[in-house]
């Protein structure tokens, strides 16, 4: 049912939120490799293997990107567009994970071919549940495209 461990790229500027995501994946033991970067520029650097991420062993191709929208330097939507516009990256599922439930954000995200849009719930248990479901759905049930590598 589940194949090779998948690398998850978490793009999140809020350290606390990143911690929450990390804890949840750890707890549900479906944790594959979670890589956290805190701004849009770093996310793109990672995906393209630039700057600090030039070593492919240290920065493997992610099987899933969890992307916040409001990010320093390069905006989340911009990162999403870049990924989806690149033939090599466009197959990577990108799940938007953000606090904003603004309609315009949702619309723009889907316009830019986001694979899913999730809003961080304020309620603790809901957040935990969301993370659990998210993990199962994307890491267990979801069929990933065959990696080109």
């Amino acid at each position, binding site marked *: 049912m589940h194949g090779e461990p998948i690398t998850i790229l978490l793009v999140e500027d809020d350290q606390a939120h990143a911690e929450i995501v990390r804890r949840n994946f750890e707890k549900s033991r479906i944790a594959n490799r979670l890589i956290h970067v805190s701004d849009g520029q770093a996310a793109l650097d990672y995906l393209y293997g630039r700057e600090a991420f030039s070593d492919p062993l240290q920065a493997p191709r992610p099987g899933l990107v969890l992307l916040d929208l409001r990010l320093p330097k390069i905006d989340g939507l911009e990162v999403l567009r870049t990924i989806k516009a690149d033939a090599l990256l466009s197959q990577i599922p990108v799940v938007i994970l953000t606090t904003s439930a603004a309609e315009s954000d949702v619309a723009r995200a889907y316009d830019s071919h986001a694979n899913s849009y999730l809003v961080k719930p304020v309620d603790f248990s809901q*957040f935990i549940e969301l993370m659990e479901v998210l993990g199962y759905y994307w890491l267990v049930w979801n069929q990933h495209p065959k990696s080109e590598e």
Partner: protein
Amino acid sequence: MNLPSDREPALTPMSGDFIHRLVMIGGGIAAVIGCIAMLGWLLALPRLTSLGQGLIPMAPSTAALFIAYGTALLLVRRSTCNRRTMLILHSIFTIGALISVALFFLSINGVFLSAEHLGFKVMGAVEGSPIGHMSPITAFTFLLISLAYLTAITVRQSGDWRGVTAWWLAIMVIVAYVMLILAYLFGTPMFYGGTFIPPAAPTSLAFLALGFALLALAQPLAWPGTGRSGQDAMRYPSKVLLIAFLLLAAGIISAGYYYHRKQEKHYLSEVERQLSAIADLKMGELLLWREERLADAALFHNNIAFANLVKSVIKHPGAQQPFREIKAWGVALKSKRNYNRIFLLDTLGASSWSYPESASEPLSRHVRQKALESLRTGRITVADFYRNEISGRIYLSILVPVFDPVRASEPLGVIVMRIDPEKYLYPFIKRWPVSSASAETLLVRREGNAALFLNELRFKKDSALNLSVPLQKTEVPAVMAALGREGVVRGIDYRGHPVLAALRSIPDSPWRLVTRMDVEEVYAPMRERLWITVFLAGAMLLAAGTGVGFVWRRQSSQFYRDKYEAELKRVELEERLTRIAANLPGAIFQLQLRPDGVSCLPYASSGLEELYGVLPGDVVLETSRLFAVIHPDDSPRVSATILESARTLTAWHSEHRVIHPERGPIWVEGSATPELKPDGSVLLHGFLAEITGRKQKEREIEKKNSELERFTYTVSHDLKSPLVTIKTFMGYLEEDIRFRNEDRIQQDLGFMHNAADKMSQLLDELLELSRVGRLSNPPEEVAFRDLAREAVSLDAGRISERGVAVEIGDTALVLVGDRSRLVEIWQNLVENACKFMGDQEYPRIEIGVEGSGHETIFFVRDNGIGIDPRFHSKVFGLFEKLEVGGDGTGLGLALVKRIVELYDGTIRVESDGTGKGTTIFFTLPSAVKP
């Protein structure tokens, strides 16, 4: 809407064609009459030059002038008179005037140059006037008409007194020559037999034509608004009035003519009756006289007693008694019966006795023959007027044959009773019951192929029995009489004068009686009447001309008064419109879309210039100049919407940009309502207004709205974020307390603290930001250096912590504004600079000013970590942060930007990239004292 710009405005239809045609017709007629007269001289056909027998012909010089003038008038073209044509016209009329002046004075002084004949053979005279020379009246008229024509072709301005003079001169010439022509028509031409040569009939006709041409030419000058200056409204009545005058003139002339003819007829019949009465009277007397003579003769005819007496005289020539007796008869006959002489002829025709005896005059052979004839026939015979060959005297004789009383067939002799017509008959015939200058009675006898005059004529000596007229000359009344005609006739008498005659035949005689009178005398009383008629007609014509002129004048003045008032009203309305329109913020206009695709602005207020830089006058005919300044991106849309509006007849509205030639790009709003015109064009009535300000406000509002939206969004997102953190970690905290996971408890609490701190800071700064939106403190003057120093002192902690060297530019610049806000600019910038100094070994911040006045640019320069050019646009955004780890909320630069904008300034960042330092440049136009 690419509109052709070289299109000429449609010309108004040529006006005054009617009048111009009149000029050409008048000139043409004059030229033709001149040509006909010339032809007459050339072919020696006097009828062509004079139009009648006994009338004066048109002189070759006159004919030449008419041809020249007529041709000149054909050249007169209204507005297309070029310089050459004008020169020709001026020359012709000037030379004509000079010639006519010369001829006038020569003619008046009785000097006639043969040069006037132009080489034609001219001889003779009519009623004492030499022919082939220009009449002084003609010359004078030529002079007047030349001057009038010169005036008419020179004066261009209507209503000029010279034009009016020319017009009235034309009327005078027309009236004068109408009278002359009337006189010709009535058979009593004017000025004949006077001191001067009278104008010929064709001359009068030609002058009439020239007069009408001049009238037409001067018409528009004398009566402005008619003819060439082309007021359609005025042209119609002017035409009508001209025609009315012509009809009136024709009516007066024909009425005068028929009235006169009727009078003449009446008078003529009276004269004829008189003539007839006189003829009858004469005839009766002649008859009586003749009968008496024959009765005298009858006394001796077949008188036996007398026959015996004659017999004894002849048979006994020596006997005293018979001679005494016959002498007594002779005495009685001569004295009582006025016989000239009594003869007794023998059978051979020889005179055997006569009384008075003394004069022994031989008998005429004619009488002798007649005597033999009477003896043969035995009847009384009349020897009609005959001339005695010897004495040459004229006699009449009555011959009575005397036969033997016993033997009746034997002739004895013939008694000849000779009558001297001079004694009784001629005076009697000559006698006229009323005094008359030309009346006369003629006695005529046909003799062979001629009519022989028997009596002495009044105007010809020794005419009796000498003068005869061949019978072929049937126009002579004597011939008519000789041919047996009776009644009243017209003819030419022996002198060649036209006469009126009554013809009679005396019964039983070869005599024909002609009582005749010169037509001239007959018409003499008529002529007097004619003068009255002609002058009456002339006066009526003049009155008609004046009347028509006054009606005309009244009409035109009324027309002009109306027009003037309408114009006044129009000017007032237009002024009102102009004044109102001048106070409108934009422009009002009418846009016409013609069916041929041309569009134009028949009206636009002066505001058009402010909006488009185009004068209303530039787009009256077509709109290409207007569309040329509309922004090329908007122009097709404007055209399309206008056409659509015209097509569907729905209101037009448009907002478009205009590249004003002086004011640069502006926004203009227009709206209009279309109206379909009967000619198929569409007229849009509307207004145009500048909306640059509104557009700017709209843009600002849009910007503010998006900023607000962003603000709301950011706030909701950024405030929610710590909340999520706190709630979530509270959950974790509960778990960790339950499982007594001490490490995690501390960690959870740390996250929660951080989140709460961040939230508090956010709220503080939001409050700060909202305060910046308005200036709270009254503006005050503050030196730049003081502001910078204050800002630096507020950031003193950070500066000293990081060991930054701060340098403040040396300038005396003074700013005016809310001091605390202005300080905030530098405070934030210095704070930012300190924050992002990185691991710079010699951190430095430079606060300075460049330029001066409104160009003053402030800057804050550091040598810190710099900003990647990719993020330059992002740094001033609300809550935008470039660094995750930093302790800022991303509000600092957004705050600075807001304050700068409050003072109408702009802000930008300059950095060559990471590690190259950063410079923030900004302006504060409203705060800088110039």
